[in-house]
């Protein structure tokens, strides 16, 4: 898989993960909710990083 394809793949993967986690949140127990939110923040940061990488890379 080419680098740019990997970035797209990881972007999709993180975004889908965020969506699924957001659907999960309303029914989470309080302690689990905090853990999931922290992981969602990490995923959001990773999306941010991947987008920066994409911006810096060669344009199609």
């Amino acid at each position, binding site marked *: 898989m080419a680098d740019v394809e990997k970035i797209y793949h990881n972007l999709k993967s993180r975004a889908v993960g965020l969506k*699924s986690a957001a659907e999960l949140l309303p029914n989470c127990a309080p302690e689990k909710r905090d853990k999931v939110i922290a992981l969602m923040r990490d995923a959001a940061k990773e999306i941010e990083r991947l987008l920066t990488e994409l911006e810096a890379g060669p344009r199609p």
Partner: protein
Amino acid sequence: MSKLNILVVEDDPLSREVMDSNLAGHAVDFASDKAAAERKLKTGHYDICFLDLLLGDNDDYSGLKLIPLAVSKGVYSVVMSSCDTEETISRAYALGCKEFYVKGNEQQNLAAIIARYMRDDGGKKAQQIFSGDFITNDPETRSRVSEALKYAATELPLMILGPSGTGKTTLAQLLHAHSGRDGNFVAINCAAYTEDLLESELFGYKRGSFTGAHENRKGKLAQADKGTLFLDEIGAMSQNMQVKLLKAIEEKSFYPLGADKPEYSDFRVISATLEDVQKLLAEGKLRFDFFQRVHGMTIGLKPLAQRKCDILPLMQAFTKGKKRLAFELAARDHLLDHNWPGNTRELKRFVELIGAGTQGVVTLETVRRHITPAAAQRRGIAEPVTQAQYDYALEHGLSAAVDRFTEGLIARNLSENGGKKAAALAQLKISKCLLYAALAKARKAEENHNG
């Protein structure tokens, strides 16, 4: 729905949380990289494995590479990815995966996959185990057995607890069958032997090591090489034997009686007892160090009275290939109402009795005739006695009738256990004094009878 053993191979911690929540109610295990996944697939027992396609940033389709291993272990493999190109999907199916799962809408998608699994191969596999190898429809028992099967292929010792006749030996055999070990399943009932005999049974002996040892004999430990040694009734083992066996389990080597060189055996231990382990430990009957060595994972089996949904399937299994039994509705209800204190052993004996002596539909009266005593016990009243017992008590007095009843029980137990006194002592929970007194009386009565 039965509790399934599921392995999720996923590198992203958020996705693992999502999977964990959506698979609540099942036994879910996680692996975050290829090596951990390989280890778990090789040693664990899983029904379904969800494989993420890429494990890590620079990964080269580890999810695909794990499919053959999962398939070879009979695991229902599901690849999950957000990268669903035709080529990847084709490769996954060609490698033997059952489903390709596109990430998103986990709640609906996972439920649908599990439902399909239950209908498909996996369901058949679980069904095969619980309708053949270990018959049970009880969700809790299924869950416990499934959990135990996860440890079948590990080196961990397993301990099975449960009243007599609940299927401890059957479960041990099932665990051995799923252990991947090439050797034999070797069972020994520790309560059936005196200390000396148990030692020679377990460790074997060399020719001439004691009077009567005319040839070398392999013990159970040697017989279980590369297999499973099933120690039933470990609570009946003396402290001295526990020390010797503990050493053999730890070192995988032992000295047969009369041997001057050790022998080696790669056996895995599964033990069982019907007694309260904590009580055995507190009373000092079970050494703590020995207990530590044999109780890696503990599985408790419930008595039949607490899983009545198993009564009819078990009866069907006991009559398989024989005359099929048909019961009146009231007779069937009575069977289900009975507490079966002897559990499956009692049920099997009952089926054999009914099968041998009944023509046509089995009536309530017939059922009552064979299981009345325990039904009376359930109602909390004294067990009814036979007319003959009552007449005997009237003629000879209560004490003589009690003695006669006691002797009858001991004689029956000895006959069922091939004359093994140690088994009678353990199963009837009687003192040696009572056993020998009863045997002496029986001998005297026989001598008098023979003139």
